[in-house]
């Protein structure tokens, strides 16, 4: 598979502490990759290394199949980015800010107006950015990242400071990028709900470690309902089911069944009845994606 972003054993230590630890990030072309993790998980640190702003302690970064170490300039010609808080020159207007970057990117002059319209800042293009609201600065940052129509867009918490309608606009904009321009997007967030409607792939990171990386569908599957069964003797029933080759977990109050379809539920219950267990309760527990995400990141905390 062709990966636009691929890191191998990527590690960054600050003193003794590992902010990023053996991270293997893989982003196929045309995906919108949601990079999720709680505060301090190492998202920004990873992104800094992806952009060559910071050197990895060990491991490697490959973008477009090229090694960052030796092809930084080549790679960055095709990357647009917004890292952490929006960066800008306060004494310049929105337009002038983009012009300062445009000179280095050699993008055509018309692009400035185009991207300003795209993020709805065209009306205030001649205002000094120091008077902008946080959301406006954030939009300007996104405009700057798209100035040269990059193949890869890296956005670190781009919805920071945006109002709800701004978030929706941004989501629509980002969603359109792979379709219209074949762009690949990496977008970090600490809220799954913020990206689950647009991301096609997710990577979850806590304490510098990647603990989940797969398509959003796979994540949804995990989130799918699990069936909880309570019987007269949970433990014995659970052992019996395992011996019978069924997938089940023993909870405190009940047995958790991981099931794919209804038939399987029926079969499991049938089996328990045949084995002579008294079934007290069968209930469905649905977990939101957000819960899954919280759980994932919590488990890691407990270690």
């Amino acid at each position: 598979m062709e990966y636009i972003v691929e890191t191998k054993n990527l590690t960054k230590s600050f003193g003794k502490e590992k902010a990023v630890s053996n991270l293997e990030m893989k982003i196929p072309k045309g995906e919108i990759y949601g990079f999720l993790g709680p505060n301090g998980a190492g998202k920004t640190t990873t992104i800094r290394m992806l952009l060559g702003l910071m050197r990895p302690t060990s491991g490697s970064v490959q973008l477009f199949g090229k090694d960052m170490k030796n092809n930084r300039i080549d790679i960055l010609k095709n990357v647009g980015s917004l890292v952490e808080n929006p960066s800008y020159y306060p004494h310049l207007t929105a337009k002038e800010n983009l012009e300062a970057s445009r000179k280095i990117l050699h993008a055509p002059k018309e692009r400035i107006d185009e991207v300003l319209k795209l993020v709805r800042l065209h009306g205030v293009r001649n205002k000094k950015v120091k008077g902008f609201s946080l959301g406006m600065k954030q939009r300007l940052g996104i405009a700057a990242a798209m100035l040269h129509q990059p193949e890869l867009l890296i956005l670190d918490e781009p919805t920071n400071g945006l109002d709800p309608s701004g978030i929706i606009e941004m989501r629509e904009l980002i969603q359109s990028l792979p379709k219209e321009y074949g762009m690949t997007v990496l977008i970090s967030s600490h809220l799954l709900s913020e990206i689950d409607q647009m991301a096609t792939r997710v990577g979850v990171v806590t304490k510098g470690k990647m603990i989940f990386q797969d398509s959003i569908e796979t994540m949804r599957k995990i989130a799918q309902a699990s069936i909880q069964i309570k019987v007269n003797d949970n433990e014995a029933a659970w052992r019996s089911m395992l011996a019978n080759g069924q997938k089940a977990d023993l909870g405190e109050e009940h047995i958790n069944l991981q099931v794919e379809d209804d038939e399987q539920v029926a079969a499991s219950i049938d089996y328990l009845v045949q084995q002579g267990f008294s079934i007290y309760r069968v209930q469905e527990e649905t977990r939101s994606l957000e819960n899954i995400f919280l759980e994932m990141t919590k488990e890691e905390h407990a270690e």
Partner: protein
Amino acid sequence: MISVISSEWYKLRKSKVLLLLLVAPLVGLFIGMSSSLGDIGAINPWYEKLVMMNFTYAVLFLPLISGVLASVICRYEHQKGGWKQLLALPVTRGKVFLSKYVLLLLLIFVMQLLYLVSIYLVGMIGGITEPFPMDIVWKTIVGGWMATFPLIALQLWVSIAFKSFAAPFAINVIFTLPTILVINSERFGPYYPWGQPFLMMNIGGSAEDFFFVPWDQILMVVGGSFLLFFIGGYLYFQRKAI
């Protein structure tokens, strides 16, 4: 490279800091105007003015303002995450460093030219009738400029390293102020980088030397400290985590 310099210039010219370039030449003008002729008995009234003006200008204002300009040129990057925006663009850090440095050199050259205008104005207003001694004056302009090369390199280094405006300025002042004392010392004066702008603009210096100081002093002190500071700053910037 040109595009990086042009971007740097673009950011700078949209601000008011370019007015800083006027400060030192205006101070020179003021000193030249307020000093009266005929108290040091030089061969030519132009020389007299030059000696007066060059002292304050070259000992204090030229190095100080150069240092401030170096901070200003990094300030925009420090302010609101400009470094990460700039360095995530397809540009090497080497080019960014060099562009900032070259732009500083150009700005300071402009400042020297403005100072040249100041000298001329002083003479005109003061009613000096002798011909303008361009053969001497251009040497002080170019010599003084070259002497700032290492100072700017150091200031650029320090300005990149510190987010605050105060730290580079303090270092600037700490090295510049002692110049007044050091240049009077026969032993240390020639080796003190901050003293070189004055020495290379001092028309009362050794007349047989092209830039009023021996060439080996220029090479060793100016050249040596330039290499040290420039390479130091360059390498520091390469390694700096953004």
